[in-house]
Structure formats: C-alpha cells, structure tokens
C-alpha cells in the first residue's frame, strides 16, 4: 500500500459495473451517447426496470466477480417512472452502505446517484468521477478477505 497514488493511477484500470434504471439513467446514458460525450471506458451498464429492482446482492456479486467499483443510479426522487421504486432503493442503499462500512469496505467504491433522462452530461460526470475515485483507491483486493472473514 506504499505505492504512490500517481503511479497507481497509471498502471491500474478499474472495472466498474453500473446498475441503472431503464427510464431515467439508462436513457440519460443514451443521451450522453447521442451527444457524443467522451467518457472513461471502465463502466459497463446493466439495465434494470427500476432502482427498486436492484437487490443489494447484485452489488456484492459484482465485487465478488472482480468489480472494483459499482454505480447505482436511477430517477430523481419524485420522478420515478413507477412512482416510488427509487424511494425503496434509497432506503435499502442507505442501510447497505452502512453495512459495507461496517464490513470494512470503503464506501467510496459504491456510488449512488440520480441521473434523469435529460442529464447526459451528469451521467458522463458520474462515470468519470467514479472511475477516477476508484482508480485512486486501487484494485479491490481486500474483498475476498472480507468475504472469508464472514464465513469463518
């Protein structure tokens, strides 16, 4: 862990998975594409109907499979296509984030954001800033240790 941050940044490219809702963030990411907004290629999107559908196990599974960071993004509060799915998601993730912190996972590896269908620019910003942040944090090597600690 004594590697200087700068050197780490140049040698390591993080893997990031984004779980996004179909109506706001996915469409917002589409808009970023149609607007040709250049962004980091580290983020791969998995589309779900609503943030309410996102099981916290998906996030754990992503870490287990080698993701260094996760983004969860959906409609702004009060804008949910399904009226209230994002509120349930918000509560679920508030608890989940605390649990992660308790388990020793740096909460900075998980980004929660609201990106609407008209916020292509914001999506690019979320992607770039998350990539930057996770790149600084380095590879998520401690996850197996955390997972095993639970088993013991």
């Amino acid at each position, binding site marked *: 862990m004594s590697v200087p941050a700068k050197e780490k940044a140049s040698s390591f490219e993080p893997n990031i*998975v984004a779980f996004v809702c179909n109506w706001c963030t996915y469409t917002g990411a589409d808009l970023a594409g149609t607007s040709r907004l250049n962004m980091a290629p580290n983020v791969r999107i998995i589309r779900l109907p*609503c943030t309410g559908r996102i099981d916290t196990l998906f996030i754990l599974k992503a870490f287990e499979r080698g993701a260094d960071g996760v983004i969860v993004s959906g409609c702004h509060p009060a804008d949910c296509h399904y009226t209230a799915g994002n509120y349930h998601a918000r509560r679920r993730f508030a608890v989940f984030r605390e649990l992660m912190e308790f388990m020793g996972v740096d909460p900075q590896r998980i980004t929660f954001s609201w990106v609407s269908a008209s916020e292509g620019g914001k999506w690019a910003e979320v992607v770039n800033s998350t990539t930057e942040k996770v790149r600084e944090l380095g590879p998520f090597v401690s996850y197996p240790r955390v997972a095993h600690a639970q088993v013991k």
Partner: protein
Amino acid sequence: MSRIGVFICHCGENIGRTVDCAQVAQAMGELPGVVHSVDYKYMCSDPGQALIKQAIKEHNLDGVVVGACSPHMHEKTFRKAAAAAGLNPYLCEMANIREHCSWIHEDRAEATEKAKGLVRFIVEKIKYNRPLSNIFIPVNRRALVIGGGIAGIQAALDIADGGREVILVEKESSIGGHMSQLSETFPTLDCSQCILTPRMVEVAQHPRIKLLAYSEVESVDGYIGNFEVKIRQKARSIDVSKCNGCGECTKNCPNKKIPSEFEQGLGFRTAIYVPFPQAVPNIPVLDRDNCALFKGRAKGVKKQVCGKCATVCGRRAIDFDQQDSFITEKVGAIIVATGYQLYWIGKEQESEILHGYGEYGYGTIPDVIDGLQFERLASASGPTGGKILRPSDGKEPKKIVFLQCIGSRDRAKGMEYCSKICCMYVAKHTMLYHHKVHDGKAIVFYMDIRAGGKGYDEFVRRAIEESHALYLRGRVSSLTRNGDTIRVQGVDTLSGEPVSIDADMVVLATAMRPQPGITSLAQKLSVSYDLHGFLNEAHPKLRPVETNTAGIFVAGACQAPRDIPDSVAMASATASKVLGLFSNEQLEREPLIARVDRQTCTGCFHCERVCPYGAVERFEVKDRKGNLIKVIAEVNQGVCQGCGTCQATCPSKSIELDGFTDEQIFAAVNAL
C-alpha cells in the same frame, strides 16, 4: 445447452469506426452456447433482419443477441423479426454498443474490449430468458365520469356519441358546475347559460348516458378495464321516479330565507329547492339541515312540525324517510373532472399552508365580494336580474376596484401558482360593468397581465381602450370601511406613488383551488396529487390527460387552473383516450411483470407493502378437501407495471420479475 445467435451491427460507421465489430463477433462465437456469430453493416435494415431470420431457421436458434444501438431504439424491430422467424420475441435481446460504447469512446482497442463485455452480459443473460407471451386483459367497455361540470359533460357526451355507455356522477343536485353560474364568457362575451344548457339537456336525454346527480363515489376497486365503483346516492327526500318537476313544493315551502349556494350567498332559496331554473335533472332536493320538519325531529318534537311540501305534491313524491342508497357499477375507465373552488380568504383555513387575507375584510365588509359573486350580480338570471347593485344597500356602485392575484402567485399565502383565468375574467368584469353602468369607473390592480390565448390579449386591450378600465400595476395593502365607501390603500408601482381610492365596491379575483375532498377521492383512485391537491398527470407534456394509474384520466380544473376552452379540450382528449382503450375487447400488454412462486411464498406480504400499484393480492392455497393451507401473494396481471421492487424486497426470493429475474441478472454479473 443453448443455441444462441449473436449479431453485431456496424451501424454504418457509427459503431464500426471505434469498435472492431468482426473481432467482437469472433470473440462472442467462442463463448459456450453461442452457435452462430456474425457482424453486418446495418442490422436494422431489411437485409440485416433477413440475416437474423435466416440464421434462426438455419441454426435452430433459441436466443438472439443483437449488439447494436439502444434497446429503446430498435428492441421492438428485432423482436418482431425474431417473432417472424418463429422465435419467441422475448428470447431476443439487445446489447447497446453504440450509445454506451462507440459514441463515447475514441480508443479503438478499449472500445472493442468494452463492447465485448457488454455483449457478453446479454449473451449470459439470455441463456436464462423464458419464452413469454403477451397478456390479454378483458375490457369492460363502459366509462365513469366523476364531476358534471363542463369538462365532465363534454367527456361524457364525446364517449356516448362514440358509442359507449357512460355513467356521470355529480355530487350536487344538478349538473352544470361553475360554468352555469357565469354571466358571460371571455373572450367572446357570449352568455354562459346559452351555450351550456343545451349540452346539459343533451346529457339528460342521451340514451347511453346514465346520470347520477346528487351522488358521490364511495369506493373504487379493480384496475384498467375492470374497475368496480361503489356510488352513494344521497337521499334527496324525493322519489325521483314520481317527481315531474312541477315546482309546487318549492313554491309552498315556508322557509324562504336560506342563502343560496348557487347565488353565492347573494340570493335566497327555500329548504326544498332546485338550485337554478335550468337544473338538470329538474328535480328538487330537500335540505334537511334547514327544513323545519327535520329540525323538529332532531329536537324530539313528536308532532310533525311542517310537511307542507308533501301536502301540496300531487304525485306524492316527497319521502321524508328516504335513506342514502348504494349502487355498484362496473366500468373500464374513469375520468376525473371534479373542477375547482375559489380560495376563501377568511382567517380560518382548512390547511396549514394557507393563511388568508384578513386585511381585505372579506366576509366583514359586505361590499367586498369575489369573482363568482360578481358573476351572479352581472347575470340576467341572478339575484339582481343582471343589474350591478351593492349587496349592502342595493345602490348602483359608481366606482369598483378589482384586485387580481388574491391568493395566486403569493408564496406567503400558500399558493405560488398562477390561477390563469383571473386576468381574463377581471377584464370581462370591467367590460360587463361598463356596459351596464355607463358612468361607472373600473380600476384594476394587477401584478402582470397574462392574456395568452386566441383573442385574449385583444380582449384585455378592449377592456382598457373601449371600456376605459384603469389598470394600475401594484398591490393593495388594506381595505377599510370609510363611511359609505371602502378605502383602498395601494401602490402604483409604475409611477411609484401610493394610491388611495374610495370605492363603492371591491371585487377580489381569488385563486382557483381544487374541490374540497379531492385528496380523499385521489386516494380512492390511487392517483397522485401535488402540494395544493391538484391531480398529477402522467407526463406534463406527452401524457397530459392520463394519470400514473392506468385507466384513470383527468380533465379540467382538477388537474390545474383551467379556463373553459382548456377544460373542454382536455375533456375531449380524455374521451378519445377512453374510446381508443375501448376499441378492443381485450387489452394487450407486455408480459414483463412479477410472478409468484406458490411453492416457496410464505405469505409475509412484504411485496404488498412496497408495491406502488397495489398489484399484490392475497391467494388462499387449499387442499383437496378445501382446508386452508396458507395465504400467499398473487400478482394481478392487469395492475402490475413491472418495476420489480417486490422482487428485491422478497426475503424468500419467491417473486420474480419476468425479463429481469435474479438468474438473468446474476448470469450477467457473472460474465464480468
């Protein structure tokens, strides 16, 4: 083992420029389960689609992954192509390598790697796709319209003329709404009653409209196409089947001094009454709170105190013991058109966010009236026969001050929205006043003039130039009695001078608010509403008359402040939506909804609590003898919209959202 076909699109240069499509196709071809993998210049073109169809047949594919643009763009196209080749359309999915890859990256190697990853997600996911078929829901092709104002009348007539049955529910004893109270209408100055009453009669005579006046919606069950509505028919104390509307009872009622609601308190009515002569249906109603007989009964007087109406009624239609009755109607769509009320500016307010305007003396100074009261004064059928007279002493006012934006656009008083119609009706009032009192002076205090609409601005100019209304830009700080007149203290912000006017009468253009009781109705319908109680439309621009609850529509001022042309346009829009819904006996919809595993569901009903649509119902599992084994959740296919919140919440993982099951998502994540 799956037999998946992968099709990578170049989209001309759009994808091909930054992604090496051939390399992606080759890499995908090596994945287990993939039996066919190709790239092509334009997958969405006819030859591209033919390529997919041919491959499905040749390779006997059981899954198709198209790596191309956003599924929002072409998912339907490719699913249709798959279906044409005999593959279940839900076994075809898209990976977005254009918007989410080629368009946002420049480095070819990086973009190609990412494209491989994105397509691999979908290849792994599709291995767990199940063939699904669209769901058909029967539609009960009758409509319910709540509210019998101009919006409700228009909607009911349009649907009925379109050949479908309509039930029109109105809480007052007559339809007509606020429009029946108006004297004349802007911007044409034609008489409101003259254009409205023929439509009211049309409603009453229409063979396909069932009019339920003096009734209210009690409860609503069901979902689009299949609502069950319980309606309370309030006791009129009159047998509707016997009454012929002769009017003998109202003529003979001894209690003649009850302030009339229709006249906004400026005129009087009897205890048994018809609100106005053109009422539809023209059947009186007995106001039990003000009837001597009922007052006597309440006091416990044994002898019948009055009962004159019953004695004079030749058809014995009066029934003092009538009770509220309930009927249940089955309908496929509901239109809400409950309209508005005016903001009461007195001290006591029903809601914490409202504050009233004590400084304007409404209710204490008799010559300070509101816009609807002025309408009644100006109406030929009103309490003064159309003469503008002061309520206090019956004298003709020579100077009237009109105040705009009372309650509207005033955050301090709780309503920051613009009520939209006041600028126009104040201009109309100044004209009507000028036409009736030639030497009278109308002075208007305004904040801005908002006269957007066909012929609207011209109308306001006419009020200023031809009817000589004096428009002062500014607010009024207080209204006080000054002998026989009202002292209006205000400011003219254009000249910067304080203004003090002694007026004979003051008219307040009070804000428009939704009807009282709108929130409880909205809860019965599970329709959302805003801070002020106005019902929310599904989308402010693209779905302005639908609500987020499928099958429920909004028209008129229950959704936002609306004038008559707006309300009528909205009403016709809802009618066209309803007729479109009713054009088929069955409603077809995508099957991407939740499904319960009856074996493992334990009936904890967490899903029921989180479902935003109330789509989760209770299902009783019984053994062969009919003994109850357990109560579990069941998803109503008509109501579920497929958000999947239930699935993420289910502790036993017994509820699955088709198209996005746990298996599918985990398979995608595993492909990381």
